[in-house]
Structures are given as C-alpha cells and as structure tokens.
C-alpha cells in the first residue's frame, strides 16, 4: 500500500472515530439520564447474593433439556407423529423460540469467551491493552 493511501486510510479512521465520539458525547439529556439509571440498576446487582451453587449447576442441565426437547420435536416433526396445525411455518417458529432460550445464550457468553481466553497464547495482550484503553 502506498504512503498516500496509507495516510488517507489513517485520516479516514481518525475522522470517523472523532465523528462517532462526538455523536456519543452529544446524546440527549433523556438518553443520558436513562443510561445513568441503567448503570445504577446494574450496580444494585452487586448487592444481591449470588444464586446457590446447586441452582447454577442446573443451568447446563436446563440447556441440555432444551436441546433434547428441540431434538424430540424435530424428530416427531420429521416422522409426522406430532400435529402442529395446518401450516408448516408454525413448527419452525416454535423451534426457533425454544432454541432462543436465554439460559443457553448465557452459557455461550461464558464458554466461548473462556475457551478463547485459554486457547490463545497472544491473549495476555488483552489484559495489557485493555488496561491502557
């Protein structure tokens, strides 16, 4: 890449960063107030006691149960033993809603992030740079 196009690219990145940052800083009073309320609500979570270990242990079990339920529904759907009504689209929507269970997403937050954290040797840089940012 030539020096000119390099500097043009950097100029574009700098300018877009500035423009977006200015947009974030000029949010309306209503939005800023609601963000502050959201922050206080989040901090209230720190005062709540953590759920007991046995409840947390049930979360993966719940995820597995949801997956098993989806598998059973899909199997029955394929073999035609379950009647979902006159339209096919309803079946897809039901499966989609079940598959979107929040607990499963919470699990994803944890598992994927910590797998990445453990597996990537260059990830120590995250700690250093995050501290600097």
């Amino acid at each position, binding site marked *: 890449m030539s020096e000119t196009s390099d500097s043009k*690219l950097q100029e*574009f*990145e700098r*300018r*877009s*960063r500035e*423009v*977006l*940052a*200015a*947009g*974030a*800083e000029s*949010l309306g009073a209503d*939005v*800023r107030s*609601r*963000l502050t309320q*959201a*922050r206080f*609500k*989040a*901090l209230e*979570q*720190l005062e*709540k006691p953590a759920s007991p270990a046995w409840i947390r242990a049930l979360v993966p079990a719940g995820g597995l149960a949801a997956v098993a339920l989806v598998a059973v529904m899909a199997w029955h759907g394929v073999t035609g033993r379950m009647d979902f009504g006159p*339209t096919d*689209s*309803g079946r*897809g*929507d039901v499966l*989609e*809603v079940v598959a*979107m269970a*929040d607990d499963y*997403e*919470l699990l*994803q*937050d*944890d598992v*994927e*992030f910590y797998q*990445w*954290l453990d597996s*990537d040797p*260059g*990830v120590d*840089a*995250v*700690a*250093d*740079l*995050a*501290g600097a*940012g």
Partner: protein
Amino acid sequence: MLRCGAFDRQRTQRESALDAARELERFLASVEKRAFKIAQIAIRDVDDALDIVQDSMMQLARRYADRPSEEWRPLFHRILQNRIRDCQRRRMVRSKVFAWLPGRQNADGEELGDPMDLAPSQDPGPGERMMMAGALDALETAVRRLPERQQQAFLLRNFEGLDVAETAAAMGCSEGSVKTHYFRAVQTLREALGEHW
C-alpha cells in the same frame, strides 16, 4: 482483642467491596454512551438500544464483577453483541409470526405484514437525506448499511477502540476474520462517503 480483629476484618471487606463497586461504576460510565450508540446503529431504535445496554450492564455486574477488571471490556462487548443479535432474532421471529397470523389483511385482501414495518421509519427519507449536512448522519447511515459482521468489526475496532484480540473475543471469531471484516468495512465506507467526506 478478638472482637477488634473481627471488626477490622469486616471493615476491610466492606471497603474492598466498595472499591470494587466504584471501579465497576467507573468502567460502566466509561463505556455506556458508546455502547448505546453501537446498539442504536445496529437496532435503529432508541428504547430497544437502551434496554440492550441495561441488560448487558446487569449481566456483567451479576456474573463477571469478580473477574479481573481488564477482562470487563471484551466481556461486556461480547454480552452486548449477543443481546443485539437476540433482539434482531426476536424481530425476525415476530415478523414471521405476524406474517401467518389470520386477520392481518387490508380491505383489498392484501397481507399487511409486520406492524413494525408500518411504524414510521427512523431512517431518513430521500428528501431528508439530501438535507443531511452533518458528517455524523452520513457516517451513521453508511455504517448501518454495512453487513452485520463488518459493522461490528468497524464499531468495536474504530469507535470503541478495542484491539484485534479483544474484538475477536467480543465477536466470537478469529483475529484474521476481524481484520478481514474491518478492512472491508473501511473500504465500503470510504467508497460510500466519498473523498470529500
């Protein structure tokens, strides 16, 4: 003597909990506005974007407050991106459900579709767009048009200032993918906004 020791221990615990809460508050205050803009650009709805940011903050405080503070940023953005995706999926499911619900037809018997589509658009119309002079409006409009992954890579890298490794953690993909998405996003945006933007 013993009672004094227990009292001191309790006071130290209380103080360290207070310090941790203050640190988390500083962190949340430092990311909340940009997080809101990221969600708003992706979702195009102020209320939904605020809900997503609040939900992400609560999730971080509830589950990861005891993690080292340097891990908070990639974790928070990972949660934020998951919540944005959830919201987009819910909208998709809702539009499918409304599409086959009976009774959603106009006088001519035509399907009305998702009521969200009938709501006034927050995207500017052609006339209004022509009047947009501000660089921010032009940039936000162009960023909204990017494919989802390019939009995420651009906003996390350029706007939020995450490095490649942190962005990869937040997006749940490899560092190579982040570089590719970011490069394509910048190319598309420069083309869309033109030389004199």
